[in-house]
């Protein structure tokens, strides 16, 4: 049951000035896969996500999302972004809109859904992330965990073919991390394709179908999360996993 990959990354190179952030990475993501990108900070995991939806231009290699080559400043990038949902570390909810309006906006503006159906969809998603009672609240009135759940609902609203999470719990207070991970678990159970940059190793082990360990812009090791976590083959992965266990 090998399916055609949704996302193909081929010898991707990303540089900021003369600094190489991503150094010839190749990887595919097939439908229903939940790929967890782990590794020390500053190794290009977040940058990789940002290259996939064209927030960053690339200096070498090729990214193809569902037969659409990803190029940062081309008009076609919109077609890719419409099909990829992105969740940010800092949530990035629109502060001038309520939780509900945040979820409605792209549906109406980008996908041409009529406002009434978009609102229904927003309320349904708010209920799913257990925030129905906060629909009319502005982001500044929500806790970090609540904001991130709204952000997840916002990303889901347009039925993306792939979801990308950029360290979704790193900016959260410890007590709200659990509620966000719980929502992510539920989404994962629907076998949605997900690409997750995270430091939550337990989540990665329990939910991820594949773990990719990155260091200094390269993929050092990859495999089934539980196996990789239990018995990392490379020294660098061993060292990293040691360091975060303490």
């Amino acid at each position, binding site marked *: 049951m090998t399916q055609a990959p949704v996302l193909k990354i081929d010898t991707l190179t990303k540089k900021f000035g003369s600094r190489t952030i991503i150094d010839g990475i190749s990887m595919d993501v097939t439908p229903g896969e939940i790929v967890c990108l782990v590794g020390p900070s500053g190794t290009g995991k977040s940058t990789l996500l940002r290259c996939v939806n064209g927030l960053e231009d690339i200096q070498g290699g090729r990214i193809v999302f569902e037969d659409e080559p990803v190029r940062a400043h081309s008009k076609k990038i919109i077609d890719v*972004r*419409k099909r990829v949902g992105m969740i940010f570390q800092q949530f990035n909810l629109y502060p001038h809109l309520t939780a509900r309006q945040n979820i409605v906006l792209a549906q109406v503006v980008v996908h041409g859904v009529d406002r009434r159906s978009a609102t229904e969809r927003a309320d349904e998603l708010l209920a799913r992330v257990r925030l129905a009672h906060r629909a009319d609240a502005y982001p500044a*009135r929500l806790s970090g965990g609540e904001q991130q759940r709204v952000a997840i609902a916002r990303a889901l609203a347009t039925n993306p073919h792939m979801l990308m999470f950029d360290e979704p719990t790193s900016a959260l207070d410890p007590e709200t991390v659990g509620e966000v991970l719980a929502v992510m678990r539920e989404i994962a159970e629907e076998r949605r394709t997900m690409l997750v940059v995270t430091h939550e190793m337990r989540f990665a082990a329990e939910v991820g179908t594949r773990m990719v360990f990155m260091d200094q812009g390269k993929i050092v090791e990859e495999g089934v999360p539980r196996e990789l976590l239990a018995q990392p083959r490379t020294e660098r992965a061993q060292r990293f996993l040691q360091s975060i266990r303490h």
Partner: protein
Amino acid sequence: MHETYGLLEYMPSVFRALGLTIWLSWLSLIIGAVGGLVLALMRTSGWRVLSVPALLYVEIFRSIPILIILFFFFYGAPLVLGINVSAFAAATAALSAHASALMTEVIRAGIESVGRGQWEAAQSSGMTYGQVMRHVVGPQSMQVILPPSVNIYIMILKESSIASIIGYVELTATGLLIREAHGGGFAILGIIAILYFIVCYAISLAGGALERRMKIAGSGLHMDGTR
């Protein structure tokens, strides 16, 4: 006392002139705001072919005295372009040119006050540049743009008095004419000054009220989410 009493019969023309002053400055502000928006988008576009001309425009029109700009439009344009320019058109053009230069910087600051994360979230959802501006960046930048815009409007309204120099009979010119007809005296100038003050103060109050309302709409906190 007698002098002031005699002025009453001129009051209808004074209020008509006040109307013209408000109309002239309002029109200039609208044109200035539209021009400023276009120039601000050019300034923030990141393309030098657009940002450099916009920058030049701003620097030129905010560095030249409004009176010179006015003379340029009133006396210069007919010479250079061979067209007749009415006093009203020249005054509107000069005030609009000045207002747009000031509005450019205000709108640019507003656009730049919206964080990169907002752009990225909106773009990631598939929005075009125009959609991001209209639905995400524009509304958030209003809180930064509004207060200085009120000041610019008040300034333009007062500046519109220079139209009297090229013979456009707005409030100041009317006051001066009445003063002459009435044989000197300062009472009429006092009345004119009070009218300017009342209008400008009203604008200032309205602007403040609008500002407060926007803050409340944004949940009572600052729109960038900080407390």
